[in-house]
């Protein structure tokens, strides 16, 4: 399917429309909702062009907080301001929260069952693998990082070792490594002429 170049379809009608749309796409998203957002809002509803989606997604990733929640805030606020942002975000959270609690209650009833304990342990190992895989998939992006592959890899390894192996508190690690990394990137970007 070719990417839509203009918004051929009407924008969301109301905050309620946003709420319902985000509820429906949240319920389809197992192990990550962003793919569903792209498919539903860019390809089906065409509220956003592909370029707009990429720009919004970049901001959503830069900002702290869950990326998909951020994305819902950015898209929602564009149409209906604060009302739209809240409608999109609560749509994303409300129904899945209900399901998660239901699952947790079912789990609590059977949590002493050896099979259930084992199953959760197995799913936990898979979940750990999923999160690691998300990070591994992003590694190639560091090749084009302005810091250069050597510097980017060094920062990544130092961060991994301090958090995963030494178990230092995240706050201190980020307070030291974050400004250092951003300053290095700033210096490199400043020296490089704009294309």
């Amino acid at each position, binding site marked *: 399917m070719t990417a839509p170049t203009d918004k051929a379809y009407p924008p969301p009608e109301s905050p309620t429309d946003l709420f319902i749309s985000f509820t429906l796409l*949240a319920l389809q998203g197992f192990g990550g909702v962003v793919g569903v957002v792209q498919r539903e809002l860019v390809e089906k509803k065409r509220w956003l062009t592909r370029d707009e989606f990429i720009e919004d997604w970049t901001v959503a990733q*830069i900002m702290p907080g869950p990326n998909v929640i951020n994305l819902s*805030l950015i898209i929602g606020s564009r149409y209906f301001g604060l009302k739209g942002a809240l409608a999109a975000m609560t749509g994303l959270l409300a129904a899945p*929260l209900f*399901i998660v609690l239901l699952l947790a209650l079912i789990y609590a009833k059977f949590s*002493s069952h050896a*099979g259930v304990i084992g199953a959760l342990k197995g799913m936990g*190992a898979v*979940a750990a693998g999923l999160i690691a895989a998300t990070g*591994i998939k992003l590694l190639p992006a560091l090749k084009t990082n302005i810091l250069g592959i050597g510097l980017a890899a060094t920062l990544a390894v130092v961060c991994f070792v301090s958090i995963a192996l030494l178990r230092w508190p995240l706050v201190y690690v980020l307070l030291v490594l974050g400004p250092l990394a951003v300053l290095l990137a700033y210096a490199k970007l400043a020296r490089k002429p704009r294309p």
Partner: protein
Amino acid sequence: MINTPELLFGLTQWLSLFFHFLSLSLLSIGGAIATAPEMHRFLVTEQHWLSDAQFNASIAIAQAAPGPNVLFVALLGWNVGLNTGSIVAPYLGLSLSLLGSLLPSTVLTYVAAQWCYSNREKLAVRAFKQGMAPLVVALLIATGWILASSNSSAAKTTFQDWPLWLLTVTTSLVLWQTRIHLLWLLGAGALLGWFGWV
């Protein structure tokens, strides 16, 4: 529940739970899961409000359910509340943890989204994005590592738990190299665990 820590909660504890999530909110660049190691350190290792099993179950259940993965935070709060033994405490724990972890980041995102959009060519914005990238990637892999190691039961050594590690490593390799639906892998993990093979 197995190894459920016994605890009694007062206002101080509820506030420190709330402020813990509040303080992590602005650090959760790359998603709430990136701050999971810190949550584990605070809730399980330091405060003993949750067991390792509860911590991992919260993440596994949220992963298995549809919707944003940040809902594991709601389950962490829910379980902390459950451990106090009170009936209303789970709801309080859920609300405080979810509200705490979302409030600062959503307010900041809402305010900054427009600014970032109109200034996306600015040097500082690009430097922040480029500089943080290696750290965000490393945090994700570190989270996977910490979850995998806390999965292993305390009684066993890491070596004896090799089937669990193998499952984690296999999962990340399969997800990295293929486009298989995550549900198949979660199902396979559940089956392997149910029959005690991992």
